[in-house]
């Protein structure tokens, strides 16, 4: 009888632990996802301050991380009103965020300037919004 009791107690503890771990992981995942979305929104603002007449900004699903340099990079596809579609390589950092984008591979067909009009953003998790 006592043995059965202890087995039930251990099972209950394990179950509660498992549920706790599940929610913790999920929360952590959500927190990270929020952080990424925030970084993407900041990057989208920088893109609007760097290039003219952008109509759509789409973040790639796959991220790159150079563990040594500390930079997280993502390829972003820009669509413009003048028909140019081009990819730029953006390194995202949580510190010293300038108004304009700094350091990326230049495609001279992409006109530098400011985009004043609304832009459609497709985030890496495929959600969308206009900015």
């Amino acid at each position, binding site marked *: 009888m006592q043995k059965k009791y202890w087995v039930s107690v251990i099972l209950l503890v394990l179950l509660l632990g498992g549920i706790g771990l599940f929610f913790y992981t999920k929360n952590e995942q959500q927190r990270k996802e929020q952080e990424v979305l925030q970084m993407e929104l900041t990057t989208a603002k920088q893109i609007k301050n760097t290039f003219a007449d952008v109509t759509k900004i789409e973040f790639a699903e796959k991220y790159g991380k150079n563990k040594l340099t500390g930079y997280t990079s993502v390829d972003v596809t820009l669509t413009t009103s003048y028909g140019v579609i081009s*990819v730029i390589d953006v390194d995202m950092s949580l510190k010293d965020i300038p108004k304009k984008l700094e350091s990326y*591979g*230049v495609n001279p067909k992409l006109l530098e300037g400011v985009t004043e009009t609304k832009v459609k953003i497709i985030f890496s998790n495929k959600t969308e919004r206009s900015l």
Partner: protein
Amino acid sequence: MVTEKELKDLNKKVYQVDLGYKESKIKYTNKPSGQLKNYERNIIKAGNQNFKILSVKNGAYGFQGMAVAPIIEGVPDVSQVTVVAAGTYPKDIADVKAAAKGMSPNGSPQVDIALTYVGQLIDDHPDWTIQQLSGYSQSAYMLKVGAHYQIPTTVFSGWFQYRSLTKAEAAFMKENPHLFLNYRQSNDDVTKWNDFNSTWGNSNDFGTTIWVAGSSHQLDSWSFDVQTGQVKISNSPENAEGIMVQTSHYIMREYTKQLSTLAQLKTKLTASGGGLSKNERIYLEDQQALLSVEAGRCAYQNAMSNAIKVYQNIVSTIEELWQETLREAYDQTAELSDYEINDSLRAIGATEQQMVTEPTALFQQKIIQAKGMDKAFATLSNEIKGKITELLQKD
């Protein structure tokens, strides 16, 4: 002249000359614009400057490097070429193996590839002037390449075996430490366990390491001044020496640059008139003297501001120590009167006069002396300027 912020960005991007670099589809190449494929780029934006990629190298032992020139008024300015080598890419086995080998006194095997690469660029492009080399982490071996070809070099979070320098390279670095900047954080374990240099024990770095308080090895950890583009070192007592070294290197660089402008002027004047007139010679000599005095003054002011900071720290520490001594004396001898406590302290030579007033006066005297020297520099500089103006009016 490329800024340190731009160098940091170039160091971040140079990894992408490697087709095996997995973190971005965009790859950097020196192909002509008409031949670029969808994900290839031959221009890099670093800071606010566009740089044309003139050459890329993907060599043995996981070496990656590139030569770039700033695009000025639409044209790459090849009189300002910068060569950057990539740090270790943790997902590239050859790169990691090279880093492990780099712990030996000879340093990373990638250095031989870098030496050949830069040498070839110099031989193949006599119209280029390679003005700057740079690296990060493992590729701090660019310091050796810089000492070899006598080119200014700046590296970030670099580990480097200074013993791998040849006699001639070491001699050049020793004579021109201002051309070499090795920014490194004092508690960065990656650099420490690779070359065993630390704030408390170094192989001779000839005054090229700029120690900054911090423990990160990441390139992302460095901040830059928005105006100057130079590495921003926060103002704290443990960074005082680093700030001094950084400033003095820049003063010397500016000084040597101005001197070479004067030398060019001399060549021009000689060429036009077949020789220097008496006034021209006096003018050039006065300008040179003025430059020396101004550089001396800047270097002195730099050292002085640090010395004053140290003195002020000592003065406040002395005052604190005295107050602490008094507090402890009161705590431990509650039954004695103030007079008796002071008397006992005096008996062992601990009076406020001896412990606070006299040393404080001494340090304040030193600060006044230092400021006096600065005035002397200013007077000398004004005298020379006056002479130059006089000469120009006569001419």
